[in-house]
């Protein structure tokens, strides 16, 4: 017998609103299945299941706000992955190996993948997220088949009509969340806690990106526009490589103890156009090729902006990277996201004077900063990390 509880999707989440169930009583669920959508101050999230079993009872009605840890549903466990009972059981795809709960690969997001963008007006996109309506399933009536607010409202109504009462749609009781103030409150709580609890130290170094960018541009010439890799992806991968050398920065500080993590799950800070930011995790960055990392990053950004992040992406980050991009400032001194112990920041890559071997030249340079938790590490280790980061970026073909 298992329980499915309201998860904590971040250090300072106290309660969440159950927006909708993606399963019903009697459904067989596996690890990684999305079984509910939950709204927090930071937006709408798809919550994954961590236990194999059959849904016994849904205890909480959509639209209800409950504290973190509240039991939302009960599951009966049916042993470890036996073959499904032939006749009655729900169709179950290949059973997962019971060894490691690897995060499920992201399902395709037809509405938002960079390959195939459906025309959706921004307010319709927001409304669809609020009402829990799948954009891909909506027939647009706007210019060029664009999905507009009215289409979303109609789809929500139809859904309301079609769904049996035991699973009332989110539209009936739309969670009342003032998005802007909610987002600010969530950031305020996490960042205040960080500054209150974490003794930060800061290091910075300038990294010559000329060789890395030249290598990347050479590769991008052979790639179609959709396959081209952004410099930010090189930076992410180099961070993962450098963490292998200074693993204590890839960790959490929990219960007054430093807990170094094995998986390198980089929280990637994504600013939202409506304001605020979220830093969902890209899992196992050290194991991804640059192409895979580019695809994962694009997918993550698209889902962050459309309200399709998964609960594991909100909870699994082991370090954060903030990249202020190629416009704007040179240097960022980040505030660590608790309970993590480090944050790596990158400013703008820009041409700067560069002295080397007695010569002055112009190079493309990025300033990398490390904000780290002095309880967990010291400046010496932090400085070794930035040195390793620089070294990996001078050798881009090995990234």
């Amino acid at each position, binding site marked *: 017998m298992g329980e499915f509880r309201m998860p904590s999707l971040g250090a300072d989440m106290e309660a969440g609103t159950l927006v909708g169930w993606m399963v019903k009583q009697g459904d067989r669920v596996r690890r990684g299945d999305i079984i509910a959508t939950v709204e927090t101050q930071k937006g709408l999230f798809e919550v994954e299941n961590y236990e194999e079993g059959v849904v016994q009872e849904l205890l909480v009605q959509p639209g209800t706000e409950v504290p973190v840890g509240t039991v939302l549903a009960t599951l009966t466990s049916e042993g470890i992955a036996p073959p499904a009972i032939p006749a009655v059981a729900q169709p179950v795809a290949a059973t997962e190996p019971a060894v490691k709960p690897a995060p499920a690969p992201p399902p395709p997001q037809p509405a938002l993948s*960079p390959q195939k*963008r459906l*025309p*959706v*007006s*921004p*307010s319709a*996109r927001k409304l669809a997220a609020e009402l829990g309506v799948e954009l891909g399933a909506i027939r647009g009536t706007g210019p060029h088949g664009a999905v507009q607010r009215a289409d979303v409202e109609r789809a929500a109504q139809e859904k309301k009509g079609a769904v049996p009462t035991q699973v009332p749609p989110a539209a009936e009781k739309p969670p009342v969340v003032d998005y802007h103030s909610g987002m600010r409150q969530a950031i305020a709580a996490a960042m205040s806690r960080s500054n209150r609890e974490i003794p930060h130290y800061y290091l910075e170094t300038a990294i010559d990106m000329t060789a890395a960018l030249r290598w990347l*541009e050479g590769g*991008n*010439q052979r790639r179609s*526009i*959709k396959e*081209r890799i*952004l*410099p*930010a992806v090189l930076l992410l991968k180099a961070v993962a490589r450098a963490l292998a050398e200074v693993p204590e920065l890839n960790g959490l500080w929990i219960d007054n103890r430093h807990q170094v993590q094995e998986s390198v799950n980089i929280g990637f800070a994504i*600013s939202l*156009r*409506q304001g605020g930011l979220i830093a969902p995790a890209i899992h196992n960055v050290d194991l991804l090729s640059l192409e895979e990392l580019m695809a994962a*990053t*694009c997918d993550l*950004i698209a889902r962050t902006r459309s309200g399709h992040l998964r609960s594991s992406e909100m909870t699994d980050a082991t370090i954060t990277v903030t990249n202020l*991009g*190629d*416009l704007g400032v040179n240097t960022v001194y980040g505030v660590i996201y608790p309970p993590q112990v480090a944050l790596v920041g990158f400013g703008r890559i820009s041409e700067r004077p560069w002295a080397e071997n007695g010569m002055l030249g112009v190079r493309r340079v990025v300033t990398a900063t490390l904000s780290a938790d002095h309880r967990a590490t010291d400046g010496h280790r932090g400085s070794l990390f930035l040195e390793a980061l620089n070294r990996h970026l001078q050798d881009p073909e090995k990234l």
Partner: protein
Amino acid sequence: MTDPQLKETVLRVLRQIAPEADPAALLPEENIREALDLDSYDFLQFLIAISEETGVEIPEADYQKTFTLAGLFNYLSAALSKKPF
């Protein structure tokens, strides 16, 4: 594709990417990314969509020619007029 069609296409794609902004208010010589606060991911998505809609391949080395509306229109018009139809 005529010039007005081209402009309509570009503005439509920009509206999808920067919904809260008003691309029609962009000045021809204004830097699109700065004016609409597009990050490198947004801008790449913008160029991908433009490339798909117009059929014009935009190599990375040419990105800098597309930073303003005037530059982008010139670039696309030139590329389209060279295309054999």
